[in-house]
């Protein structure tokens, strides 16, 4: 109340809120009977609200002037061909039993099949594959079994497939219809729709194949479908930005299905938002895909193109290998990025990088082979007895250093022809410690 004073609100409350205020304090004070206080409090202290139900909506009692009894009475079914009388309970109102047919008689529907006379048969319906007898039998069964061809096929005396029976029935009906009502007002008739027997046979065969697919086949199918979906999606993605943004369409080439087009904005100096180019195993395919993506751009800088090609070429190499390539380039006196990137220069640069990669791979191979070889070796042939690990990393990193020896001194002869290493002996004994001291390759060595 002090707060209200401060705020200057009137002390007297409006009547309605006052009522509310007076009521709730009353409720909790009054302890209701029958329910504990806590349970009552669950409802919020008030009596639970009940949806008001219109009393008249409740049980609709029949008008009291009617007298209803239930009686066990006989009945007949018009759907039956005989006069069988059965009994059932009937609700009799005021002594009057219900009239009308048996309620379920109306559901006894049967198919309308056309009947033909012998004349008509002679005139329109003869068929080499079917005798009149068979056709008659067919139609009789159709009538009896309401065109349930499965059953008819079962009952048919001579063995005929369901499709054959269907075919015969439909063609006969169609011929009859067109014969009896020549003008075109039969086109709406459902029977006129042609029944394509070969297609039906094929369809059913396919269905049965699908049904009998093994689990493995199912899995394969879903895989292939998913693959196809991805391919079409990437094609759609390729076509989408193409049509909307890039005006010119370049001829992509054979690897079409595996590629997505790079982003639209041509800002080669910044990183292009490129969709993933599907990894191809060979360098040639890499090149082709990079070339294709470059051609999608309407304009680009040659340095950018070279970057892309270099990246593509070193896609399979790890970071360390790339660093080693760059190191080698530096040792050879070549700029990591050519200063004059003309077409020829860029091509040479790319080729050089690829060759260095090959070189490094070969060195690694050699390393492995030697490691294999020397791990078995404990013969005195080795110039470093007792040191199985002969290929220190530091050595291999310098490709233009003399490679560590595996065996024999005959190799040295060859190597020394190319390299005059100051302070290095040319005998068979060459310790790893010596080979660890690398010497930088100089351009003058060429």
């Amino acid at each position, binding site marked *: 109340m002090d707060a209200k004073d401060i705020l200057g609100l009137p002390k007297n409350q409006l009547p309605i809120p006052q009522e509310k205020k007076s009521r709730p304090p009353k409720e909790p004070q009054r302890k209701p009977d029958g329910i504990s206080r806590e349970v009552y409090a669950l409802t919020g202290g008030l009596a639970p609200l009940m949806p008001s139900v219109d009393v008249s909506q409740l049980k609709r009692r029949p008008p009291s002037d009617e007298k209803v009894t239930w009686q066990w009475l006989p009945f007949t079914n018009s759907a039956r061909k005989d006069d069988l009388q059965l009994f059932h309970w009937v609700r009799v109102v005021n002594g009057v039993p219900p009239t009308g047919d048996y309620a379920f008689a109306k559901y006894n529907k049967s198919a309308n099949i056309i009947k033909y006379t012998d004349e008509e048969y002679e005139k329109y319906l003869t068929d080499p594959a079917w005798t009149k007898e068979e056709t008659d039998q067919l139609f009789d069964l159709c009538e009896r079994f309401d065109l349930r061809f499965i059953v008819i096929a079962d009952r048919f005396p001579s063995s005929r497939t369901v499709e054959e029976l269907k075919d015969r029935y439909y063609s006969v009906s169609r011929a009859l219809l067109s014969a009896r009502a020549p003008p075109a007002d039969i086109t709406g008739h459902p029977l006129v729709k042609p029944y394509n027997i070969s297609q039906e046979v094929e369809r059913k065969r396919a269905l049965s194949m699908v049904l009998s697919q093994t689990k493995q086949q199912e899995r394969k199918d879903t895989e292939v479908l998913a693959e196809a979906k991805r391919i079409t999606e990437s094609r759609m993605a390729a076509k989408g930005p193409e049509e909307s943004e890039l005006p010119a369409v370049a001829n992509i080439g054979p690897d079409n299905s595996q590629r997505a087009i790079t982003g639209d904005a041509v800002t080669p100096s910044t990183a292009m938002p490129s969709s993933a180019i599907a990894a191809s195993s060979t360098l040639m395919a890499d090149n082709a895909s990079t070339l294709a993506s470059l051609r999608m751009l309407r304009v680009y800088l040659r340095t950018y193109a070279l970057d892309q090609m270099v990246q593509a070429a070193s896609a399979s190499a790890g970071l360390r290998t790339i660093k080693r390539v760059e190191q080698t380039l530096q040792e050879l006196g070549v700029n990591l990025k050519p200063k*004059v990137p003309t077409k020829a220069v860029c091509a*040479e640069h790319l080729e050089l990088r690829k060759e260095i990669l090959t070189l490094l791979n070969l060195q690694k191979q050699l390393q492995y082979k030697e490691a294999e070889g020397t791990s078995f070796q404990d013969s005195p042939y080795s110039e470093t007895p007792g040191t199985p690990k002969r290929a220190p990393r530091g050595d291999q990193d310098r490709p233009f250093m003399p490679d560590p020896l595996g065996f024999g001194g005959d190799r040295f002869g060859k190597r020394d022809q190319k390299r005059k290493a100051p302070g290095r002996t040319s005998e068979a004994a060459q310790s790893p410690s010596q080979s660890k001291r690398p010497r930088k390759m100089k351009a003058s060595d060429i």
Partner: protein
Amino acid sequence: MSARKQGDGQPEDGGATAGKRLKIAKFSEDPEKKGLSRRLKDAEISLPIVYGTIAFYLGRKASESQSHKWTVYVRGATNEDLSAVIKRVVFQLHPSFNNPTRVMEAPPFELSECGWGEFEIAISLFFHPDVCDKQLDLYHHLKLYPEDESGPQSTKKPVVVESYDEIVFPDPSEAFYARVQNNPAVIVPRMPAGFNISAPVAPENTSERERGDTKDHPLSQWFMNFSEADELLKLAAARQQVQAHIVKLRRQLSVMDGMPQLSKPAPAYE
């Protein structure tokens, strides 16, 4: 007029750019757009350019806020006029400059300013409509202070940083090709014999316009020389070395494979 994609049965959406979306074999019905729509497949037109900055120290005339006078430019690598290909160049300077977006509509595409700070200049190249409808962005760091900081800066010798690059148009339109086939600034591919496109009829009257080439540019004495011959030589030499080394390694490997017995003692390994 609608254009059709080669190899694709689908008709393309219409629109102004529809005329360009064609491969070489198909033509659009509108003759005006024919030149744009026919494109040279497997041919590329390249434009060698050099872009960079030259910065002079102002010496006595230098103040705190204006210590250097520098020029940023885009020129042809052989100092030829680039305006046949480039329509305009937009230099985006540091926001501390007035109107940092400078547009050059005519060659020579350059801009001179005074300042004290180094920053990255964004250079956007816009091409003529028949060349390319997308812009190309280059970035260049403005260098004012020389590498060796020994001694006072000279007002005579500027700090020059230039970059050589080539703008490649992979799928040029025939109209573009026709226009520039005899342009000294442009590298055009050799087309097979019998491939003739006549140059457009009305050449520009060069006497009326200012010279667009930079052959006699006042700063031309500082222009760097970019010779691909040097680089090619170096690359060729390097490749030779690498190839020789590869041959050697291959020989070693084959020898190793050839005689595995040398290394293995009688009991092999456990």
